[in-house]
């Protein structure tokens, strides 16, 4: 159906182009013919030529009647003969033949030559002949005139006819051209709407894909929340249970403070999880606007370590070794977001390495960055695992039972990037993992 329609359209198009070009060629040819016919031919001047002959006949008649000098009469005679000779020549003769006056003129000329004064002819006979010639010419002049105007009018008719034909050809070509334009515009419109449909379909597909991704993220997030909330809640429940189960005597204050600490840490973990989820959600909505200022990264690291130690009762402050820093390490960053990143990286280092192993933290300058490096002595990660480590909801193999959202590293990297920095993971020489935070140097410092 479409193929037949397409072929028909092409036939239409080709036909219109052929008609258009054909008509234009016809018009051009007619104009060329017109141009050729527009010249004035000398034979169209016959009224004048014939008039001159009449005048010369009269001049000779005058010279004869005035009895002028023989030389003058001879000259006038010669000129009149030349006029009659001219009328005998090809183009003039044909014109006069058409006008129906040729035959008689030839007779007048031979009659005149027979009376040549140079041959001593009788002047009286010559005068009579010329007088009769003048009268004959007078009657023929009107025939010449009407024939000339007749032929002029016929020629103009034919020119007008040609002109009209050329005009009609051009108009026809214009109509065919309009048809062509209409077809081309229609095709263009079809093409455009086809492209629009295609674009719309692509957009729909990409919207659908994004929607699917979001739905998948939500589902995984719900799973995660359910799973990760369960453990701290179980811890709190167990602590409360211990405190209320005791029936014999009052609860010793040591037990209360111990269970309170355990419960608070569980709550802290829940809060942390909620904060992370909120932050991710804000990041996804592009609602996080970093306020970048100059801050010493070393100081930030120290305060984050202090906070970490304060919120977890069982953490050993000696595990974290912060190397002493002498050079300035002023970075251009948002302190809240940077603290969040550092806290995530440090928690990971503490969580994924044995409790008796050291975690080294150092802050230093590279060529155009301030770098904070956190090295643990845990199991480390294979290159393949490092590659996936920043994926959302990714949990290292064997760590599924440890608390964690699978969002920490993703969040850390996203937060670093919106500040113009980055987070990387590399294998540490001698085992373990090195996490590094890069932040832009403060140019003023």
């Amino acid at each position, binding site marked *: 159906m479409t193929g037949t329609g397409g072929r028909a359209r092409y036939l239409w198009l080709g036909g219109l182009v052929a008609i258009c070009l054909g008509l234009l060629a016809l018009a051009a040819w007619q104009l060329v013919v017109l141009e050729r016919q527009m010249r004035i031919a000398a034979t169209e001047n016959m009224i004048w030529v014939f008039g001159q002959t009449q005048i010369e006949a009269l001049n000779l008649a005058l010279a004869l009647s005035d009895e002028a000098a023989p030389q003058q009469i001879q000259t006038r005679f*010669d*000129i009149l*003969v030349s006029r009659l000779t001219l009328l005998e020549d090809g*183009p003039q003769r044909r014109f006069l033949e058409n006008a129906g006056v040729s035959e008689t003129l030839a007779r007048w000329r*031979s009659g005149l030559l027979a009376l040549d004064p140079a*041959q001593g002819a009788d002047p009286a006979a010559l005068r009579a002949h010329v007088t009769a010639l003048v009268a004959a010419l007078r009657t023929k002049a009107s025939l010449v005139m009407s024939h000339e105007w007749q032929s002029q009018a016929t020629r103009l008719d034919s020119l007008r006819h040609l002109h009209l034909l050329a005009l009609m050809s051009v108009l026809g070509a214009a109509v065919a051209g309009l048809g062509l334009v209409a077809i081309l515009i229609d095709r263009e419109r079809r093409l455009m709407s086809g492209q629009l449909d295609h674009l719309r379909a692509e957009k729909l597909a990409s919207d659908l894909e994004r929607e699917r991704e979001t739905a998948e993220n939500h589902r995984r997030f719900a799973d995660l929340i359910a799973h990760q909330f369960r453990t701290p809640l179980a811890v709190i429940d167990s602590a409360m249970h211990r405190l209320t189960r005791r029936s014999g005597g009052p609860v010793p204050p040591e037990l209360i403070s111990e269970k309170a600490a355990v419960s608070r840490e569980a709550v802290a973990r829940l809060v942390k999880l909620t904060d992370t989820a909120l932050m991710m959600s804000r990041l996804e909505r592009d609602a996080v606007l970093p306020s970048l200022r100059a801050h010493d990264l070393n100081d930030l690291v120290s305060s984050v370590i202090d906070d970490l130690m304060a919120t977890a009762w069982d953490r050993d402050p000696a595990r974290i070794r912060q190397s002493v820093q002498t050079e300035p390490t002023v970075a251009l960053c948002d302190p809240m977001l940077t603290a969040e990143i550092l806290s995530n990286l440090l928690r990971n280092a503490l969580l994924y390495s044995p409790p008796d192993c050291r975690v080294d933290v150092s802050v230093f300058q590279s060529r155009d960055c301030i770098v904070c490096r956190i090295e643990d002595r845990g199991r480390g990660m294979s290159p393949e695992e490092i590659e996936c480590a920043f994926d959302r909801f990714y949990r290292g193999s064997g760590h599924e039972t440890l608390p964690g959202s699978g969002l920490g590293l993703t969040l850390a990297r996203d937060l670093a990037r919106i500040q113009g920095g980055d987070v990387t993971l590399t294998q540490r020489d001698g085992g373990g993992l090195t996490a590094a935070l890069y932040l832009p140097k403060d140019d003023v410092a």
Partner: protein
Amino acid sequence: MRLRYTAQTALMTALVFMAVPVAAEDVLLTLTGAVTDGRVEMTRADFDTMDWHEFSTSTSVTDGRPEFRGVLMRDVLAHAGAEGSSVRATALNDYVVDIPVEDFHRFDVLAALYMDDVPLTPRDKGPVWIVYPRDNHGVLADIRYDMRWVWQLVALHVQ
């Protein structure tokens, strides 16, 4: 009938020749105006001292392409020491037309004395016929140039 016509033509031609014997001392062309001493008369002898040229061309008043022989118009003007931009040509019958001198330099315009080896006489288009090389230049096939083919030329006034 045809025989009679041919005999008639022969007779006429003979009469023409007898009627106008051209003597070497007869003045054919008179130049006036901006020429040497204001007036130069040219006889057949003067023409004979100049370079002669010939060519065939169609004309607006004859059939075929007759061959014309004569001298170049620019040579005639040079012979008379003419200094001007235009000549007023006058024919025996007082036909008068102005011709720009430029024409004679752009084209090889002939002051023809012979057509098809027959001398031009006042009974035909003589003594002198101004002939343009009409077939060599498309622009010359035009009534504006046809008007300048003066026959029976007798005088040129240079201005």
